[in-house]
């Protein structure tokens, strides 16, 4: 059993810290102009962060004890390809989920 005080301390500081991270630029910079080289880099924030978040889940999935898993890999590629082609999150999610469940059913 974890000490409740420790839980509350973690909830409080994780909440405050996360808020300050989110507030940082949006709150403090406001309508001041950012340098051009800086905003040019910011155009790539999404594609610089999110693929990196995905890759460990694909290469070492917890569910298979860290072994490469064909259904997950193929479903990821399907979700990515369809999402890019249709420029749509909805189609990406649908493609990923149906591919994963179909392959798990066939191979399972």
């Amino acid at each position, binding site marked *: 059993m*974890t000490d409740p005080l*420790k*839980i*509350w*301390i*973690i*909830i409080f500081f*994780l*909440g405050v*810290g*996360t*808020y300050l*991270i*989110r*507030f*940082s*630029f*949006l*709150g403090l*910079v*406001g309508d*001041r102009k*950012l340098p051009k080289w*800086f*905003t*040019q*880099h*910011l*155009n*790539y*924030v*999404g*594609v*610089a*962060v*999110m*693929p*990196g*978040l*995905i*890759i*460990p*889940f694909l*290469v070492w*999935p917890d*569910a298979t004890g860290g072994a490469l898993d064909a259904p997950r890999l193929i*479903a*990821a590629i399907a*979700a990515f390809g369809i*999402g*890019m082609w249709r420029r749509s*999150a*909805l189609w*990406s*999610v649908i493609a*990923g*989920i149906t591919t*994963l*469940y179909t392959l*798990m059913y066939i191979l399972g």
Partner: protein
Amino acid sequence: MNINPTSSKSAFWLGYRDNIPFWLIVAPFGMLFGAVATEAGFTIIQTMIMTAFVVAGSSQFTALTLLQDGAPTLIILATSLAVNLRMAMYSAALVPHLGRAPLGMRALFAYFLVDQSYATSINAYTDNPEMTLIQKCRYFMGSFTCLLPVWLVSTYVGALIGAKIPPEYALDFAVPICFIALSAPMMRSLPHFMAALVSMGGTLIFISAPYSTGLLIAALLAMIAGVQTENWLKRRADND
């Protein structure tokens, strides 16, 4: 479906609508968090206050895992906050679009700055450069209005059920598919592809960096790769 994003009222609903696909992801993810948290010894009150106050699923999972491992408080906080540092980049990326909004509104937006609201908004702003400040604000509000209730309710349901969700549902895939669905529509050009490649390669190379800071190193390198590719393409076009 075609809603005109340049009318303010429909900008809100467009933001709302663009986030509906993520119900499929946020709902199981929230349930999973609720279930895991109560299993880890959280009361329902603690689970709900955490989920409503932090609103950042992956860092909440990180904190839970480390708590169960018996890690010291400071290490738990440093590691979980490092997971959220990417949001400083989202915050900066939104400045050119939302920076002129009043401070109170920006303070509110900061609370709701999650992966989905950032990604769907920035995509809409880039696709519709004629959007006004008010329309951009309304779109952002629509995006989080769509997802926050689902996140809270599903966490609560998960905390109540508490039972383990069967592995056949492959819920471990909810997180990667979420980020795939968010990033696939962002692949607009070769520089974006280069950034994505460097992001993936860099994360794998720096995977054992302390406090999960590998992602941040990889992201910085990826942004540089994107800009360098963009500049290189420009120079090449100028020389032709």
